[in-house]
């Protein structure tokens, strides 16, 4: 193992960890400000100028609160539940290509922790494991509302994973590779969203459902389930669950930007080269992620919640057949283009 490579990757991992956590923290602030703006309020404005220190105050509060474990809870599982949720939210970012190669200290540094040739499958693998954090936490609480929340969350995540996977397969068909890096480099001309608007729409709706965000936030539906799967959680364990939600929102925005909006590609890319290209590329990618986060929050504060049976109908009877038809048509067009008929 090359020592320089090891150091380089370690720094990148640490940086990604900090950026994901920082982004998640400031997304809570952004969400509150945005909600305030949409509802014609002021929002948090006490801590620092424009309330900019609010996430830090929230974090300190989370740490200082009493850490309470219910008497009849399964202690061990109650503790590892939020840990799993946070872990799975963080490790997805390992396969995300954050920008073009950076040239520093006489080395070409790839801004991607692991360029594995099954990147997109890795994302789905982590996604399917992410269910455990919520399920274990909800069950271990020994509370009926938590259990209902956990069951809702996991059945919703399993259902929407299918349509999401099928719409991702159409992208794989287009690019002929499972590696996220290849998918991004192939979009340097035209972004995938122009070829696959239907797949993008399905993927976006499914991502909302996977994230348990409104209008699909039934797992934490206050009017029915108190607080959903984290009803019994307090202190930093609750903080980890909330943080995990925002981190996965950040990472899934990145994945959507990669699959459909060209990742770090931007119009007029050929005029730049070297480090300038890398920095503008990272900035373009960050802007795309920011726009996705904004849209997801905007939807939350605009659209009311679905009913649970409506949610299941939408997933199984509308999105899944639609994505399958889309896949079939894409396959036929590609076969026709390759001269198979």
């Amino acid at each position, binding site marked *: 193992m090359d020592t320089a490579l090891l150091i380089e990757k370690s720094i990148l991992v640490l940086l990604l960890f900090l950026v994901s956590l920082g982004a998640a923290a400031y997304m809570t602030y952004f969400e509150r400000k945005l909600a305030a703006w949409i509802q014609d309020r002021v929002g948090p404005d006490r801590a620092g100028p424009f309330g900019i220190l609010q996430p830090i105050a929230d974090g300190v509060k989370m740490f200082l609160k009493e850490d309470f474990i219910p008497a009849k809870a399964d202690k061990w599982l109650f503790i590892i539940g939020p840990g799993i949720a946070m872990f799975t939210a963080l490790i997805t970012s390992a396969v995300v290509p954050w920008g073009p190669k950076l040239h520093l200290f006489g080395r070409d540094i790839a801004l991607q922790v692991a360029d594995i040739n099954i990147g997109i499958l890795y994302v789905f693998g982590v996604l*399917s*494991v992410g269910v455990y954090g919520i399920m274990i936490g909800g069950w271990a609480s020994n509370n009926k509302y938590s259990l209902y929340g956990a069951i809702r969350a996991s059945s919703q995540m399993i259902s929407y994973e299918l349509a999401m996977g099928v719409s991702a397969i159409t992208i794989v068909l287009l690019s002929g590779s499972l590696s996220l890096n290849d998918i991004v480099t192939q979009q340097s001309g035209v972004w995938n969203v122009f070829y696959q608007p239907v797949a993008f729409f399905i993927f976006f709706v499914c991502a909302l459902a996977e994230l348990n965000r409104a209008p699909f936030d039934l797992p934490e539906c206050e009017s029915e389930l108190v607080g959903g799967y984290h009803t019994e959680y307090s202190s930093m364990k609750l903080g980890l669950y909330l943080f995990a939600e925002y981190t996965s929102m950040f990472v899934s925005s990145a994945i959507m930007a990669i699959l459909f909006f060209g990742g770090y590609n931007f119009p007029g890319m050929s005029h730049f080269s070297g480090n300038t290209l890398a920095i503008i590329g990272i900035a373009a990618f960050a802007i795309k992620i920011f726009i996705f986060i904004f849209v997801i929050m905007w939807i939350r504060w605009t659209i009311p919640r679905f009913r649970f049976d409506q949610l299941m109908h939408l997933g199984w009877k509308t999105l899944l057949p639609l994505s399958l038809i889309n896949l079939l048509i894409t396959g036929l067009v590609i076969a026709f283009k390759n001269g198979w008929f």
Partner: protein
Amino acid sequence: MSLQIISIILGSLTLASALMVVLSKHPIRSVIYLVVTFFFITSMYIMMNAQFLAIVNMIVYAGAIMVLFLFVLMLLNLNKEMEPMNAKGAQIAAFIAGGSLFLVLITALKDTLILGQTYRQQDNSIGLVKELGNLLFTKYVVAFELTSILFIAAMVGAILLAKREKQIIE
């Protein structure tokens, strides 16, 4: 050499967590240990550079199937009072069946040691998705398609079963 040490550590961890599946008294914890076992098996596939197999193992077994197991167990809410008492006859039968399975596995293991040597001489990229895809869609295409038909039959069957129940309720 370090690779060998890692695989020994992984192997013993796999065995330990697999043992915990059986030894753990609590059904939910057993399932969680089984998930952990699947993760160790996934990491072993990665050690053999079989990335595709590793990730499919993770998605299908650790992700999908075990979630269903967990689902069922959580809804059953098993506890010690509800646990059925094991009859002596069943215990003896289980011991004999387990023992013979163990014997079969040991015999199989004897052959795999030789197979393991031939594996090393082969191409290291065999587990990558490109090679696997090429093999599945050329040499093994009939088996592959037949398996997919089997899966579709199972899926249609499951949907049919679920539907019939609904009609009875109505």
